[in-house]
């Protein structure tokens, strides 16, 4: 049983890594073939070598980005879930905030960057604020949709049986809207990450992955850019798998609320 599971894990890991290795190999060959300038498509071996050599520098950039991400995103998650729940709960709050949310949601987060740079200057305050704005809207939107989609008879049933407000909140409201809230948090995180990297290119200070790759552009150091991209991809997958994987298991799977959310 245990052996079978281990074998399955190895198999799925292999089927993930193998095509990527193949892809790297093809890329390596193209890069050496002389069909394209190696400066434009540097061979993966060089990219990974660069990654290894500059690891201390890249790590500092990564940590700077992650700090901003954590700060901006967690503020947005707290504010977003709170606002979303009150919107789902109260008709008037919904009536007031829904138009504002649906007007501001399609505005790309990066649009705020030039304005915020004027107000807050270059650097962390601007970057954190933009991250906050970018991730706030999906969280609010999905949370309020989740809370208002709760079946009314569940609420009525709980109320008739004399459940307190707190019990209704923690036993009915939260579990049944949890899948939506998690979707919102997931979307919010993805958007926060994208926007942060983008804005780091514009409102650059000295550190941050976005700044790193944009700065490398100035010196035509393409292998540095690719190295930065590789780091971004890996880091985000790790964040998403670890945080949301466990969160989903702890909450919606435990509460029996697993649903297919597209």
């Amino acid at each position, binding site marked *: 049983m245990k052996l079978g599971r281990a074998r399955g894990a190895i198999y799925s890991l292999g089927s993930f890594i193998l*095509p990527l290795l193949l892809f790297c190999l093809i890329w390596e060959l193209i890069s050496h073939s002389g069909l394209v300038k190696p400066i*434009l498509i540097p061979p993966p071996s060089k990219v990974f070598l660069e990654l290894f050599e500059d690891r201390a520098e890249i790590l500092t950039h990564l940590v700077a980005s992650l700090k901003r991400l954590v700060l901006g995103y967690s503020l947005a998650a707290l504010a977003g879930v709170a606002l979303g729940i009150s919107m789902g709960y109260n008709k008037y709050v919904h009536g007031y905030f829904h*138009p504002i949310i649906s007007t501001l949601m*399609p*505005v*790309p987060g*990066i649009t705020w960057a*030039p304005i915020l740079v004027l107000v807050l200057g270059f650097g962390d305050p601007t970057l954190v604020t933009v991250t906050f704005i970018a991730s706030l809207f999906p969280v609010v939107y999905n949370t309020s949709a989740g809370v208002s989609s709760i079946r009314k008879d569940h609420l009525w049933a709980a109320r008739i049986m004399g459940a307190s407000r707190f019990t209704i909140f923690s036993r009915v409201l939260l579990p049944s809207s949890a899948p939506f809230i998690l979707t919102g948090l997931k979307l919010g995180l993805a958007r926060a990450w994208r926007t942060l990297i983008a804005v780091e290119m514009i409102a650059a200070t000295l550190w941050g992955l976005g700044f790193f*790759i944009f700065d490398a552009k100035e010196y035509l150091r393409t292998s540095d850019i690719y190295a930065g991209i590789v780091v971004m991809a890996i880091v985000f997958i790790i964040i998403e798998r670890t945080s949301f994987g466990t969160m989903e298991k702890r909450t919606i799977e435990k509460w029996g609320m697993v649903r297919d959310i*597209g």
Partner: protein
Amino acid sequence: MANRNGLKGFFLFLIPIISLVAIWEAVYLMDIIKVLPSPAQASNRLVSLAMTQRDGIPLLLRHVGTSFYRICLGFSLAMLLGVPLGLLMGLNRYVNFLLKPLFSLVLPLPTLAWVPILLIVFGMGDITIVIAIFLGGFFSITYNTATGVRGIDRDLIRAANTMGASRLTMFTRILLPGSMVSVIAGLRLAVGYSWRALVGAEMLAAAGEGVGSFIFMARQFSAVDDMFAGLVIIMLAGFVMERFLIEPLEKRTVRRWGMTRD
């Protein structure tokens, strides 16, 4: 909401927006943020943008038109290449095996991370921006199409096979409707990504015209009323896109195919 309740709904939608503008005006009058323009200044600028002409075309229309042209081009390319590749990935085991790991790695990457490379290869201008838009949409279209095709009930395919359906019938009657929901979900996501990529790429690869470069250039001259006018334009464009393009399209297609979820 605005359509369903007619005039009343429209005003209910407008009141929060107006109150927001009132808050803006109040903040301006209290002079808390030094650089903030008043709503009147921003809207004046908007009017003058619509009135000022260059080569017989109002400036406003030039910026919006250029952006619109770019996003149409980039997005159609993404759709034309993404949907067939997605179908191929969904139908062919080997293609899926080879490309899936790559896509799951590239999908969460910020689209703008590619811009530094594009800038080195293609320089500032239309090509870089259009390719950024293309990349923004391409991955999620392909990925979602593939997921949709793979999610089709195998029994349906087997049943059609046993009953002697031709390849064409199989495609038009089973594969297409069966994967439609997912394809449309992918297209919807892709519009958002392309839109964000457009504004961001226009800021980074500013080529004179386009809403993104308009805002970005305004920052260099500290023309705050320009930036707010640009923000309002982006807000309106996003809102119009969401309300009058995506929502009706989504309703018409997904409902017509009888594939609404939940």
